[in-house]
C-alpha cells in the first residue's frame, strides 16, 4: 500500500498563476512597512497605501491582491504612531475598522471593479453606488475575518492611528488625481468622508481604466 501512498494520491493546493509576481512585487513594500517606524512622517504610510492602490489599479498585482499579511504589517506599524483623534475607544475602533475595510476593499475588490468599470456609467452616482457596494462587501468580509480574532487584533492595532493615516492616504490619492489644492489640510473623519475617500479612490481606478482604454478623463479630475 505504502508504495503508492504518497503525493500522487494527495495533490496539494496549487499557487495562483500570479503568485510569484504578486509576492515579488509586494516584498519591497512589505520591507518598507517593516522598517518604517512611527517616528517617520505619516506620509510614508500614505505612500505605501497609494502604492498598493496603484499596483492594484495598474494590474501589477494582477488580481489586485497585495497580500493580507503585508497589509497587516503596515497597519500594525501604523498602530504605534501619535495620531489625531483622542482616546475615545469607540472612535478608535471605528477608525480601525474603516482602515480595515478600506484595505479589504482595495485588496479584494479592485480587480472586480476594474473588470466592471467598462460596463458601468461614468457618472459619479454610479461610481458611488458601486463603491458603496464594494465597501459593504468588504465590510462583510471583515466581519468574517474577525471571527478568528485576527480582525480584532487588526482593529486594535490600527485604531489609534487610523485618522492620520487615512488623511495621508487621501492626500496621496488626490495627488494622483491632480487635485492637491482641494485636500490641503483635510482631515478624514466621519461617515461622509469614508465614502468620499472610497469614491475618490474608486474614481482614480476608473481614470486608470479609461486611460488604459484611451477614453476621455472622467469627472473625477
Amino acid at each position: 500500500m505504502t508504495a503508492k501512498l504518497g503525493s500522487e494520491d494527495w495533490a496539494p493546493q496549487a499557487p495562483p498563476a500570479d503568485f510569484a509576481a504578486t509576492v515579488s512585487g509586494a516584498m519591497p513594500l512589505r520591507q518598507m512597512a517593516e522598517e518604517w517606524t512611527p517616528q517617520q512622517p505619516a506620509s510614508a504610510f500614505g505612500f505605501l497605501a497609494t502604492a498598493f492602490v496603484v499596483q492594484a489599479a495598474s494590474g501589477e498585482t494582477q488580481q489586485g491582491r497585495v497580500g493580507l499579511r503585508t497589509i497587516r504589517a503596515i497597519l500594525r506599524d501604523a498602530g504605534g504612531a501619535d495620531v489625531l483623534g483622542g482616546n475615545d475607544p469607540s472612535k478608535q475602533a471605528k477608525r480601525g475598522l474603516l482602515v480595515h475595510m478600506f484595505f479589504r476593499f482595495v485588496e479584494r475588490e479592485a480587480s472586480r471593479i476594474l473588470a466592471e468599470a467598462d460596463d458601468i456609467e461614468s457618472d459619479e452616482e454610479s461610481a458611488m453606488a458601486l463603491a458603496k457596494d464594494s465597501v459593504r462587501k468588504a465590510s462583510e468580509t471583515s466581519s468574517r475575518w474577525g471571527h478568528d480574532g485576527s480582525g480584532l487584533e487588526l482593529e486594535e492595532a490600527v485604531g489609534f492611528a487610523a485618522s492620520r493615516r487615512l488623511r495621508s492616504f487621501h492626500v496621496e490619492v488626490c495627488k494622483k488625481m491632480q487635485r492637491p489644492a482641494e485636500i490641503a489640510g483635510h482631515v478624514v473623519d466621519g461617515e461622509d468622508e469614508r465614502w468620499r475617500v472610497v469614491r475618490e479612490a474608486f474614481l482614480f481606478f476608473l481614470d486608470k481604466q479609461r486611460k488604459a482604454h484611451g477614453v476621455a478623463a472622467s469627472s473625477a479630475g
Partner: protein
Amino acid sequence: MTIKDPISPGHSPNSPGLESPDEGSPARVPVPIAAGGSADTDESPPSRSVRRSRDEVDDCVLRGCVRQDESAFTEFVICYQHMVFAILSRRLGCGSHVEDLAQEVFWKAYARFPKFEIREGQPVSKWLGTIARNVANDEKRRRGIATIAVSDPEPSYAPSLSERAVALRRALAELPERFCEAFLLSALEGMSLREVASEMEIAASTARTLILEAESMLRRRLARMGVPG
C-alpha cells in the same frame, strides 16, 4: 525498502514518491529537501553549504536574491512556490490562508536573504522548507490543529482528491503528531530517512521507527475504512 530518487525523470518538488524509508540512502537524494547532514531546524540562513540540483535555483539567482533583486526573487518564488504551498496546504487545509501564509514564508526568506551564505552542500530548499514548516506549525497552534487539518477551510481552493487520498488524509490526522509529521516528511515531502531525522531532531533509527509505524497504523486505518491499500 528504498526511497525513490527524486532526481529521476519526471520528478517535481511536489511529487516525490515513497517506497519506503531507507536508512542507507545517504546524500543521493538532494531534492526537494536534501540531506543536510546535521539538524538545521531553526530559520537562520544556512551557513554551511548549498548543494545544487536541477530542481534548485542556480547560484546566479541566489546571488540576486541575496541582493533582493526582484526578478531573481520572482524566479526563486516560481521555483519553490509549489513546495511551499504543499507544505502549508497539507498541514492546514486548502484556502486563501495558504496564500497568505505562503507569502509570509517568502517574506521571511526575502528579509533574511541579505545574510544568506551561498555554499555547496546544502540546498536552499531545505532552508525554505524549514521556514515553511515553522510557519505552518505556528498556524496549527493558533488554529488548534494537533496534526493536520482534516478538511479544507475553503474547499474551492482544493484540488479534487481521490477517495483514497481523502481517506489517507483522515487517517493521517488521527495519528499521534510525531508519527504524522514523520510520514508527511518522508512520504509526501520526499525526505530521506536522514533528512527526516535531521528535520525532527531525532536519531535516524527513531525516524525509521516512526515512519514504519506510521505506515502500519495508516494501513490498518485505511483497511477499517474499506479503502484498498
